[in-house]
């Protein structure tokens, strides 16, 4: 079985970026200087991904203020709302407020993805918010039901996927923590499946992933099994390995073996053992190792150090890195 590794979410900003963005807020530097530093830093993330065998490359979405901001700022129908706690972390996002059914702005979202990921000769993966998580965390004043909105967002994201395919992206990953934090059932679950059907139709020839984190994926496995994407990722810091015996056949399994909530590096032997234990009870089509959630819960340096476990684990598991 193919075992590989990839980045699975936002990467932290470097100390240089921290200083530059603070300076920008205080009027001590220019937007152009900060944009140039972002571009260099995205290149550094791609270099790191290449060195560690993490593919496709993401570039780290360093510029994004939060997972939803690029959509809230570029699609019509949205304004950017109040600070809201990002699940059980000490970080916050600005809640998008949806005033009427949204429309995408062609090219706008792609323009906010790290250019370095697809211009340096590597395969690239775009990371986007999933329709269920976006619909669930925004404030919906549009008049549409949540179910209708999830489906609509799926169709809009499908159009984004078509555009990203045209730009040469090899993969698209959707961040869906809410799928495991607040497991949908009934009509809500049907709307999720419908949304991803629309995405799947657009994604032919492109690797698609749904990555879940911040909660146990076990209770969500029945609905995750119905989502037509190639790979489903789970946060192993939250998910009991035994639960994955019920992982659906025929799908790739993403294993979040790095816990971004602690700076303590993972022990490669423990990682290899837990992966082998899981693969003893289930037979996914492929395995992708990565961080269990967004690495921007860590500073840049510790995040890079924790990633070092991935190539070693992949090698010991006989994979491709």
């Amino acid at each position, binding site marked *: 079985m193919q075992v590989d590794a990839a980045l699975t979410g936002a990467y*932290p*900003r470097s*100390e240089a970026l*921290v200083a530059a*963005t*603070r300076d*920008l*807020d205080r009027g001590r530097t220019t937007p152009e200087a900060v944009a140039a530093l972002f571009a260099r830093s995205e290149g550094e993330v791609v270099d790191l991904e290449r060195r560690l065998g993490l593919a496709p490359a993401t570039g780290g979405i360093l510029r994004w*203020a*939060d997972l939803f901001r690029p959509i809230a700022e570029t699609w019509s129908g949205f304004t950017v709302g109040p*600070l809201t*706690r990002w699940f*059980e*972390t*000490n*970080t*916050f*996002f*600005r809640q998008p407020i949806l005033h009427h059914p949204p429309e995408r702005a062609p090219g706008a979202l792609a323009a906010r993805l790290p250019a370095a990921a697809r211009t340096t000769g590597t395969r690239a993966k775009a990371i986007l918010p999933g329709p269920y998580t976006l619909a669930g965390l925004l404030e919906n004043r549009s008049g549409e039901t949540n179910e209708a909105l999830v489906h609509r967002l799926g169709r809009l994201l499908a159009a984004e996927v078509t555009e990203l395919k045209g730009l040469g992206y090899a993969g698209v990953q959707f961040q869906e923590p809410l799928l495991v934090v607040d497991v949908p059932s009934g009509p809500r679950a049907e709307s999720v499946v419908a949304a991803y059907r629309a995405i799947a139709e657009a994604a032919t020839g492109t690797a698609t992933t749904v990555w879940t984190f911040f909660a*146990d994926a076990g209770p969500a496995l029945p609905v995750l099994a119905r989502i037509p994407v190639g790979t489903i990722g789970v946060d*192993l*810091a*939250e998910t*009991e*390995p035994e639960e994955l015996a019920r992982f659906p056949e025929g799908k790739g399994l993403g294993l979040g073996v790095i*816990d971004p*909530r*602690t*700076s*303590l590096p993972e*022990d490669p032997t*423990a*990682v290899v*053992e*837990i992966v082998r234990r899981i693969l003893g009870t289930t037979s996914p089509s492929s395995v992708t190792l990565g961080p269990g959630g967004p690495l*921007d*819960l*860590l*500073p*840049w*340096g*510790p995040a890079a150090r924790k990633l070092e476990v991935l190539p070693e684990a992949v090698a010991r598991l006989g994979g491709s890195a």
Partner: protein
Amino acid sequence: MTAKLFPAQEIGSIAKPRWQLLGQRGEALDAKARAEWTTWEDRLHFVPPGDATAAALLAGRPADVTPGGIRDLGALFGLRYFERAGLDRVYDGEARRIEMYEYPIRQMTGFQFLGHVRSFDSKYYLKAAATGPVGLERPYHVDEFAFVKAHARGIPKLPITGPYTLADWSYNEHYLGRHPGWRGRSVRRSAQREFVVDIARTAIRPTLKALIDAGCRVLQIDEPAAGTHPDEADLVAEGFNAATEGLDAEFSMHICFSEYASLFPAILEAKRCRQWAWEFANRDTPDRDGYEVLKLFREYGDTREIGLGVVDVHRDEIETARQVADRILRASKYLGDPRRIWVNPDCGLRTRSLEVAYRKLERVVEGAAIARRTLEGPSAS
């Protein structure tokens, strides 16, 4: 129980005056800072006669302003600001503090700062990891308290960051690292418990004891992280108990912007907590009764005092005294006992201008007076 109905207290920091910030940077006062100085000196009379720092600032001699002198003056300003607004319990507006995490951690041993983590947008905080057993370099806030005690006319109430928040805002390497193999949920929780209790016992408790030995009788333990992980409310309580074990003082616990219902009943195990000082006004809107959650105390039979947040610290709109009184009276009804209520802002007012914050504090006091008269009759003060 309170001696008079609805006494008022401060709850946290206020914005630092511009003259203090310029003075700390060794810069001369500009016109804006001078105007601010004049406005507040006229109102508060916070400058002691013959104060050398004030003289140097006003004479345009910033080189003669010492770091200690300007902070002392800032602390006096904070004290008089709260006292003049009519509060019964006061502090210095946290005039000497910049934030509530990094400073306490730097007084401890066993921590290493790893770098900045984004809180939101382009706001970051420096985050440390416990890389060894937690210890205490020296008790902290003691000198700060001594100054307040020497100058306060009201009753001093000292705020200090609690053990659960310090642990939650740090990485837990040392305690987690003692558990070999795969570290799943149960291992992480167990290690976090060890971390919280160790901070409480080895760093916070000795600091509280030193403060109490210095004469501090009222201490507010700030646990803003308490609501981050609803299933860890028992750790918040356990940390509180470990930090206060064997100590004799009035302890309160300040929590804000959390889903309080999720903390019940585990949080009630904080045995030496005499007062729950929580934010309520922020969640009190025309569509939602922000005080209804107080019914939970009655439901669980908890009869401790409530530090009732009656003004929103996130909005410039000034509450009316009538609105504040209405909130107090509603809370009294839900608790079934008005004598358990202290009134305060939801949280620290540092994000509001000094003018807005002061007017909000005045409304707290005026609203409490209206509520008192409503319950005790027109003769109540």
